[in-house]
């Protein structure tokens, strides 16, 4: 039976976490991708390696990702699919459990591996344990931890794009507006390099120290919860158990102590660098390269050293 992936897109192309969900779905059957939005996003999905079919609609009902109409649409589409997946993004985590309950199945959140059609691995307790779970439900509803699956290639596919079915509007909620930050930097969950700052940054102004090093490295900017709570960085920068899960080639933690909730979001990075003035900081126990020092001295030096070839 076919497998459905609900895509996230940025207005023009499907996101990298969506391609990771496609990679997970490819292990389960023929992949159909549902794209709600502009035609260009559907065309980008059609090019993703391993995608057999794209279903597309520009219906304004889905323009703002409201969970109620979207779950209703997915319920109507569900009979044709054995598995329904979405990236474990804010959007995917919002709608997939709602869909699962409407189908009377238990959602399987944030999978990190596919064992077989019924069996999946998922982290629990902030990633301190990995549970292998087998679902007895007739249909599986899943969110996919993007950092755990190499994304399917953006090019190489040539799927047909067809019209998605029309769904009902339950009329329960209204979208009022959004403040979405526009950034020239790469997206946190897709970046090859991430530079994150913690409470030690001391102020939003000081966070520019992180940003200018990130710009030298073409990196995304992340933050600890303490830095976000203190207003030094926006909420969508939070890395951790309850923020974003990242696994870049290089993660640089600056003035971050390394609480388990933070480690949960970054400990699968390939190379970890920690810069902290406390040589006992727990972050050093996961760091490949540790530098003990005052960040306000180290970071400007780091920036000028990067500028040298």
């Amino acid at each position, binding site marked *: 039976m076919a497998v459905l992936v609900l895509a996230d897109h940025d207005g023009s192309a499907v996101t990298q976490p969506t391609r990771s969900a496609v990679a997970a779905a490819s292990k389960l059957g023929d992949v159909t991708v549902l794209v709600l939005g502009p035609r260009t996003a559907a065309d980008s999905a059609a090019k993703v390696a391993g995608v057999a079919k794209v279903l597309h609609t520009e219906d304004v009902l889905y323009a703002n990702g409201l969970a109620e109409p979207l779950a209703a649409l997915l319920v109507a589409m569900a009979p044709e699919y054995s598995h329904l997946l979405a990236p474990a993004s*804010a959007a995917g985590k919002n709608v997939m459990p*709602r869909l699962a*309950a409407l189908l009377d199945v238990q*959602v399987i959140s944030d999978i990190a591996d596919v064992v077989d059609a019924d069996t999946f691995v998922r982290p629990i*307790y902030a990633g301190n344990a990995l549970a292998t*779970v087998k679902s007895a439900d007739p249909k599986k509803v899943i969110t996919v931890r993007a950092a755990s699956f190499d994304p399917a290639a953006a090019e190489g596919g040539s799927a047909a794009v067809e019209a998605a079915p029309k769904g009902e509007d339950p009329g329960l*909620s209204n979208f*009022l507006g959004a403040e979405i930050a526009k950034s020239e930097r790469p997206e946190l969950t897709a970046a090859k390099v991430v530079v994150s700052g913690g409470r030690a940054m001391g102020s939003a102004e000081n966070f520019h120290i992180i940003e200018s090093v990130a710009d030298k490295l073409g990196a995304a900017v992340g933050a600890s919860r303490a830095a976000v709570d203190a207003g030094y960085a926006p*909420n969508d920068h939070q890395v951790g158990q309850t923020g974003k899960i990242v696994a870049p080639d290089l993660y640089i933690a600056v003035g971050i102590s390394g609480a388990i*909730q933070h480690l949960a979001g970054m400990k699968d990075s390939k190379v970890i660098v920690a810069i902290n003035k406390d040589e006992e900081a727990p972050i050093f126990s996961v760091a490949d390269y540790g530098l003990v020092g005052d960040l306000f001295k180290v970071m400007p030096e780091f920036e000028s050293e990067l500028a040298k070839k």
Partner: protein
Amino acid sequence: MKLLVPVKRVVDYNVKVRVKADHTGVETANVKMSMNPFDEIAVEEAVRLKEKGAATEIIAVSAGPTACQEQIRTALAMGADRGILIEHDGILEPLAVAKLLKAVIAKESPDLVILGKQAIDDDMNATGQMLAALLGWPQGTYASKVEPADGGIKVTREVDGGLERLQLKLPAIVTTDLRLNEPRYASLPNIMKARKKPIETLKPADLGVDVSPRLTVLKVEEPPKRQAGKKVGSVQELVEKLRNEAKVI
């Protein structure tokens, strides 16, 4: 407005959990248990709505073993009015919890249910959305602001790129994110007062709910351990290593 707040008993967030030697789960014997941190935020939000005059009554509900009474008492000490314990030993998945809560809601008719966005033990991030689905109610997940407005509620949500605002009809489901508020500590007099507040005990069978799990845990393992690497002596050395040894920049 009547409020219902589901609170889960979980391993305290400061505990470093250990996987059991037989790989059936994690060690929970003799481990400090607490209210799920996101549920403390939910209780706090409910109490603030009541203090503002927007809510009349707060009911705290927990599903699980008898010991969940402790977490209900904490909610009562923070300002909830009464508690309901749905007593069950054994695994309760989000779908089962949502069904139990739906049955309680049928009896209590709250206008707003505030849950945590995620339980820090199973990390499912599902119960609120599942409950909203079963009830056919709107959902405002990952809330960083909740305001009664225009006969419904306005919810500001933390999403991937920033924030978004929704208007929900009532009754509705809200799930809390970390920055919604900072939960208070219960004062000693309030802890004493909470002892007199009523807790009703129900069983899943009283509510006519089948709570059989849908997922079988085949094994629980420790993730691969990361080895601590080396300390570098200078920024120059760090950059040299990143360029020539790790080859990541």
